[in-house]
């Protein structure tokens, strides 16, 4: 453990999927601020490069790798590229996810598979590809993106609720299997987070989100900064005995 500060990630390499999105950018900045090098993973090269440039401008080492986490060949190549560039993978943050506000009856086959594949299958593909690297190192840490909908359902979020529940139990099973190799596997489960991508929607259509706010004891939606500390904590030596957990960052939503 870093005797000076057990919450630091100096010398570590973090992979962030969905790295061009609002939460991915936030996570990448948080990991870099804690001292880590960062590999940004996503489908859109330009967006990823912009994030990587921003991190480099702040003094971090950062690379962008284009990959669709729903395609295992992409994922395997991304892991090879990350190891090629940085030599190791210490933290894998399976952040990529998509959703749809359609009712269950309206959801198409394509909608269902896109939502399940990005959150659940994508997290599995990435963990499967990164685990051998972490096993060789004898240490590593995987953080999956859960949700309040890992533990609660929500109307018009049928596929997303199923996918995020899958993520929570994927987290447990991986923790059991990878623990003996020194690899911890946890999830964070935030409430709705306001990012650059949905901020305008939250502002112009607050009714869409009011039900979540009303059910949240702390009385607000999440901000990206609310999950940054949780991510760094779970990734750091400060959480070295925490594995298999889903850490709810939800303002008390699931306590009531």
């Amino acid at each position: 453990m870093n005797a000076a500060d057990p919450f630091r990630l100096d010398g570590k390499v973090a992979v962030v999927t969905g790295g061009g999105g609002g939460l991915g950018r936030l996570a990448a900045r948080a990991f870099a601020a804690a001292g880590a090098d960062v590999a940004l993973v996503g489908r859109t090269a330009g967006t990823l490069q912009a994030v990587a440039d921003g991190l480099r401008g702040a003094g971090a080492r950062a690379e962008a790798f284009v990959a669709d986490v729903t395609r295992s060949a992409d994922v395997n190549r991304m892991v090879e590229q990350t190891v090629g560039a940085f030599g190791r993978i210490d933290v894998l943050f399976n952040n990529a996810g998509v959703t749809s506000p359609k009712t269950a009856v309206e959801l198409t086959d394509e909608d269902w598979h896109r939502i399940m594949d990005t959150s659940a299958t994508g997290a599995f593909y990435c963990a499967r590809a990164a685990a051998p690297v972490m096993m060789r190192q004898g240490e590593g840490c995987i953080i999956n993106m859960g949700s309040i909908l890992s533990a609660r359902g929500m109307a018009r979020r049928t596929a997303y609720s199923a996918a995020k529940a899958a993520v929570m139990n994927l987290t447990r099973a991986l923790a059991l299997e990878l623990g003996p190799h020194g690899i911890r596997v946890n999830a964070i489960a935030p409430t709705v987070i306001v990012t650059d991508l949905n901020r305008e929607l939250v502002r112009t259509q607050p009714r869409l989100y009011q039900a979540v706010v009303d059910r949240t004891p702390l009385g607000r939606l999440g901000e990206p900064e609310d999950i940054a500390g949780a991510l760094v904590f779970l990734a750091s030596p400060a959480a070295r005995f925490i594995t298999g957990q889903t850490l709810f960052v939800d303002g008390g939503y699931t306590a009531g």
Partner: protein
Amino acid sequence: MARLKDRVAIVTGGASGLGAATARRFVEEGARVAIADIDAERGAALARELGAAGHFVRCDHTDRGQCRAAIAATLARFGALDILHNNAGGPFAGPVETADDATLDRVIGVNLIGGFKMTQEALPALREAGQRRPGGAVILFTSSLQGIKARPNYTVYTASKHGIVGLVKGLALELAPANIRVNAICPTVTETPMLPKFLPGMAADMEEARRRFRATSPLGRMPEPVDTGNAAVFLASDEARMITGIALALDGGQMAG
């Protein structure tokens, strides 16, 4: 390391074990800490070790008057109260028939009612902190892995620790409007002075006991007190500003399976 800069904390049961590790980590992160404990000798020694940031207050938290006095002493010494860590607790192991009335009162009293009383007495100061600090005030409880699962022959202890988790969720909902967050830490068996008391049947062979506990975790080891301290630092810090009403297991993955 200044995650708790300018904050004032009370840690009950702070003289040894998990409480002492937490008090040390709080001070390393910039807080000033009142160590509330019935063990005056060890409590005072730890306060001396912590220097100006440490203060010992003798307190049996099952006695409401002593809770009130401990909080008054903390406010007199440090001027505020931002973090209450209800950590004090005691073990009980044995078949359910062996828990006599005095044992029931003691275990539930020390593990559950004491923290409840301390919280009630601390609320005026914590509400003030909730208004004063944008990041609010924090109440932490040391529950146990027995707060979310059971073991045979630990039934009274398990009930008391489950009670803490219920208390935490209720307080979280009730105190959120006052900008006070409330969370529990649920460590599995940790290397502390209390360890042999948790394992009365195994006290003769502590190495075998440790081997068994290491085997409950896929990580293959037991936690150390500082692991609880680090979890407490995180949950007490503003980095956890959106976390309330949770029971965070420190179990090395035991509950995953």
